[in-house]
């Protein structure tokens, strides 16, 4: 179980997260929705301390990391238990697809090379890139790069994978292949938190949906409830706008 309590984050004078509480159960797929600038990315980055919150606690199963007492070791442990898929993929450009996936297994988890290679190949096969093991990122399409990013996260067998708008940098025709991969691994019981603008995807794949606006969680619930019968006016407005945009873009 992942439990965020009272997460606050300010940048300069701007309070971007105003006390976020969130519980994610083992095997949950949580979709986080919200307008741009509402703090979704910042929240994800606070979970693995790429951003240090100003206040609050991040707990992953037994490990509880409170900002006030977070040591370097705590943060390192937190990062080993989580993995992240970035909007811009952030692949290691000087390493092949296989090397990208092996890096964490060998350097962080200290697995023997052979075993790391096996796991990395498995992960890349799972995302449909078994034939691109030795390609460098510069030779892969955006969709393929993002799938390597997913394989890199997946191979580490983390307790949760954090996705930050994994498809929003992609050309529209490449979005589908990446969503299909995420959908597939969601079906395998891996805990995931996904920030996304893909409403249909969130509705179909998520077990729990969170709507954020202005640095707070406005409303959360199962997808049928949040999309079907949203309680808050702000949620309704947002969904209306997003679904309009979504239909225009077709």
């Amino acid at each position: 179980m992942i439990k965020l309590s009272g997460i606050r984050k300010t940048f300069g004078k701007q309070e971007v997260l105003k006390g976020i509480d969130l519980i994610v159960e083992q095997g949950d797929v949580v979709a986080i929705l919200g307008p741009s600038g509402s703090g979704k990315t910042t929240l994800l980055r606070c979970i693995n301390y790429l951003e240090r919150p100003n206040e609050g606690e991040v707990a992953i199963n037994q490990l509880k990391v409170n900002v006030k007492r977070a040591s370097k070791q705590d943060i390192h442990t937190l990062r080993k238990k989580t993995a992240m898929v970035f909007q811009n993929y952030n692949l290691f450009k000087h390493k092949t697809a296989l090397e990208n996936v092996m890096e964490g297994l060998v350097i962080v988890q200290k697995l023997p090379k052979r075993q790391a290679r096996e796991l990395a190949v498995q992960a890349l096969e799972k995302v449909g890139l078994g034939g691109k093991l030795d390609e460098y990122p510069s030779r892969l399409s955006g969709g393929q790069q993002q799938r390597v990013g997913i394989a890199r996260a997946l191979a580490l067998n983390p307790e949760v994978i954090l996705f930050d708008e994994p498809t929003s940098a992609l050309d529209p025709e490449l979005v589908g292949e990446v969503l299909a991969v995420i959908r597939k691994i969601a079906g395998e019981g891996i805990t995931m938190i996904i920030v996304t603008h893909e409403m249909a995807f969130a509705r179909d794949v998520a077990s729990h949906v969170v709507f954020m606006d202005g640095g707070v969680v406005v409303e959360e619930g199962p997808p049928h409830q949040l999309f079907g019968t949203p309680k808050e006016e702000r949620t309704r407005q947002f969904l209306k706008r997003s679904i309009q945009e979504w239909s225009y873009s077709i």
Partner: protein
Amino acid sequence: MKIDPVFIWTAFVKLLSALPMTLFITAISVGAGLVIGSIIALLRIYKVPVLQHLAAFYVTFIRGTPMLMHLFLVYFGLPALIDAVSGAFGWTFKSSSVPILVFVLIAFSITAGAYLAEVIRSGILAIDKGQLEAAYAIGMKTPQALWRIVFPQAFAVSLPNLSNSLIGMLHGSTLAFTVTAVEIFAEANIVATTNWKYFESFIAAALLYWGITLLIEKAVAVLEKRINVYNRGGVA
């Protein structure tokens, strides 16, 4: 003026005896310069309190003064400092027992460090922060992330500048002759004066420097090609 072409060859062969000294001075100063430069660059990039300002001062001062000045400041200043410290602690150690070459190497390392700091700094800054974050996100620690992810790519980006610095230090190593270290240029001077054939000797020296420079450029080109395999293509 009469030129003795055969003597150019004779001189060239004689100069080869000083080649190892030139290569040694260049290699050590660039090697030490890389270490100094990396530390300086990181102090500035990570904005380490106080030290970042010292680092910035070092870079502007050294780059703002001639290399020969660094050599003389070290050559004349350091022995006095050593003797003063040694005296204060009552040691018997004297600066006169330190080989001249050591002062040359220290001075040139200081010079190279400042130039390389800027080369390394711009190389590191050219690597997008996202990759560093990805490294942290998979649980790597800062030294691992720098060493395995950032530095190799920064090195590739910086290769042309590094090559320029290396050639600059090779040519700069001629200044060592002013404090009687016998590298190629000093040897050329000796060959010139003992044979009264100045022009031929220095032509030979020029050819030798040119040759080494061409070799460096060639080697860098090969290295660049090998290292930058990952930049080819680019479908995305």
